[in-house]
């Protein structure tokens, strides 16, 4: 690490806007990973990268949705090291499909793993070890087409294990419930692979539904999944996952998502969507206003009936 890199993590006030955080850390040609899993996806963060048009990205991820399919559709991804790319219940990843099947907007390199073994790659990255052993992948065709998956004999028992290499992305973008200005990040609910991606990355951007005081963090130290020393920037970014859900915060807007993914079925529909929902605005605030705060508030209020934050 260079001196400049270390300085970010030592800052006492790491707050910045999303625009600043992306332009500071997400550089052309860099590798990047986003938090979220089958929900709690980094949507606002994806839109900002598309707005800034950062090219030739290597996308690392377990099961990216918007941050996979839309970045690929926007022509910003050179290579993807992932386990899955789609939107599950609401629809398929048609940009991903078009890129692989037809090379539209351009072909991408693909290095495929499974969700767990992407998780293990991040664990290895977080631990600063070169690889992790696993019993996944054995016997399947993933190692046939991905030569980074190696097999070895366990030197203790002689059993077969697969190895996956550490992942150390240039940038991790991790969305959490709340953080203080130093970057101490807390999540209520599941964390998918968030705590390891934050540590595996060279630069870590914490986005959060709410910035709180350090005193508030200290009230629930068991909830801190990422300590300040692993964090470069903190961005307050409410409703960052819309139309996805965020636990204890707002419900899934699946009807919006279905509309979005209907549009993504054609290349033209996707490009039109970008014009209307991304390029039309200078920031996520514009998107949220177009969605409507009344609608967002309904999603927030209905969520409180089901999962009520105890913080």
């Amino acid at each position, binding site marked *: 690490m260079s001196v400049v890199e270390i300085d970010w993590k030592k800052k006492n006030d790491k707050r910045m806007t999303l625009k600043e955080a992306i332009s500071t850390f997400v550089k052309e040609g860099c590798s990047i990973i986003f938090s979220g899993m*089958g929900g709690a996806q980094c949507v606002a963060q994806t839109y900002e990268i598309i707005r800034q048009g950062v090219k030739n990205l290597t996308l690392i991820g377990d099961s990216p949705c918007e941050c996979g399919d839309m970045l690929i559709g926007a022509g910003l991804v050179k290579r993807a090291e992932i386990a899955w790319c789609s939107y599950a219940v609401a629809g398929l990843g048609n940009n991903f499909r078009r890129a692989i099947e037809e090379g539209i907007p351009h072909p991408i390199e693909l290095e495929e793993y499974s969700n767990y073994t992407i998780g293990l790659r991040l664990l290895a990255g977080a631990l600063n070890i070169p690889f992790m052993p696993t*019993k996944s992948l054995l016997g399947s065709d993933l190692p046939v*087409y991905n030569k980074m998956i190696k097999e070895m004999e366990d030197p203790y028992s002689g059993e077969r294990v697969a190895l996956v290499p550490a992942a150390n992305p240039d940038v991790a973008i991790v969305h959490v419930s709340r953080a203080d200005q130093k970057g101490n990040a807390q999540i209520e609910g599941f964390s998918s692979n968030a705590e390891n991606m934050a540590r595996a990355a060279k630069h870590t951007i914490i986005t959060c539904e709410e910035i709180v005081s350090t005193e508030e963090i200290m009230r629930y130290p068991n909830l801190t999944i990422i300590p300040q020393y692993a964090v470069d920037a903190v961005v307050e970014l409410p409703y960052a996952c819309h139309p996805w859900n965020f636990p204890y915060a707002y419900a899934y807007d699946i009807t919006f998502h279905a509309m979005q993914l209907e549009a993504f079925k054609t290349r033209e529909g996707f490009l039109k969507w970008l014009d209307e929902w991304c390029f039309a605005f200078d920031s996520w605030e514009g998107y949220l206003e177009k969605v409507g705060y009344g609608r967002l508030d*309904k999603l927030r209020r209905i969520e409180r009936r089901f999962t009520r934050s105890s913080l």
Partner: protein
Amino acid sequence: MDYSLQELLVAASAAEIKDGDVIFAGVGVPTLGALVAKLTTAPNAIIAMESGSIGPQPYRVILGIGDNPCVENCICTTSLWRLFSDQQRGYFDVGMVGGAQVDKYGNLNSTAIFGKGSYTRPASRLPGSGGANDIASSAKRTIITIPLQRRRFLERVDYITSPGYLDGYDARERAGLPGGGPAAIITNKCVFRFDPVTKEAYLYSVHPGVTVEEVKAEVSWDLKVAEDVKVTPPPTEEQLRITRILDAGGIYTQGNLKNLTFDKYINMLEESYESLKEIFKGVR
């Protein structure tokens, strides 16, 4: 009582679950099946969701493996990597997986249909493994759900995303896989199980009204058939009642997502809270 095919599949999935099982389930029919089992014959079953939630008892339908219902009334929220590690450790009894192609040894493909192309430029690109490879590698038994079609039931899949019994016999053990492999393939017309020695899939039961010949016509290898092919039990009244409460909006069992408006959706959630709270009382 009348029932839809989807409702039969929910019941057939539920039938695979024993009380006390820990179940790794994706959204849709598998989760509905697991919940129906929990609310009927398997009150101590625990459902694990990939994002890192264990044991949810949600008062609404789960719309994603990381949807908020996954943390509702659950016993533990943790990480994806920890949950899969627990599976690799052998704590998970049942894993539910799907795919676009399956072969006679229960190997699944959810990566790409090569067609006239190849892995790098396939005729049809699918989402990929996600957690399916891991589930198929480590769950004590896996339950496969896939529509019965000749183009899907192959001698050998184009790409093994999720290992079944590989080349049959002890190939799976030799590969070093810790999990037990597929226990059943549930389709829209029948259920397959696996020969304990050869590990080849055979026809175990046909759904009500389906003939053995209909099934054979949709399988592209020379299918072995059980001596006494059973009829898949239709859903019980209780299973149907619960399925219809769990998926009151018909998102999975009626394909109603397209017709859903925002206001109807919020309304559906509000009603769901009351009705599901009621049926979960029995297992709390």
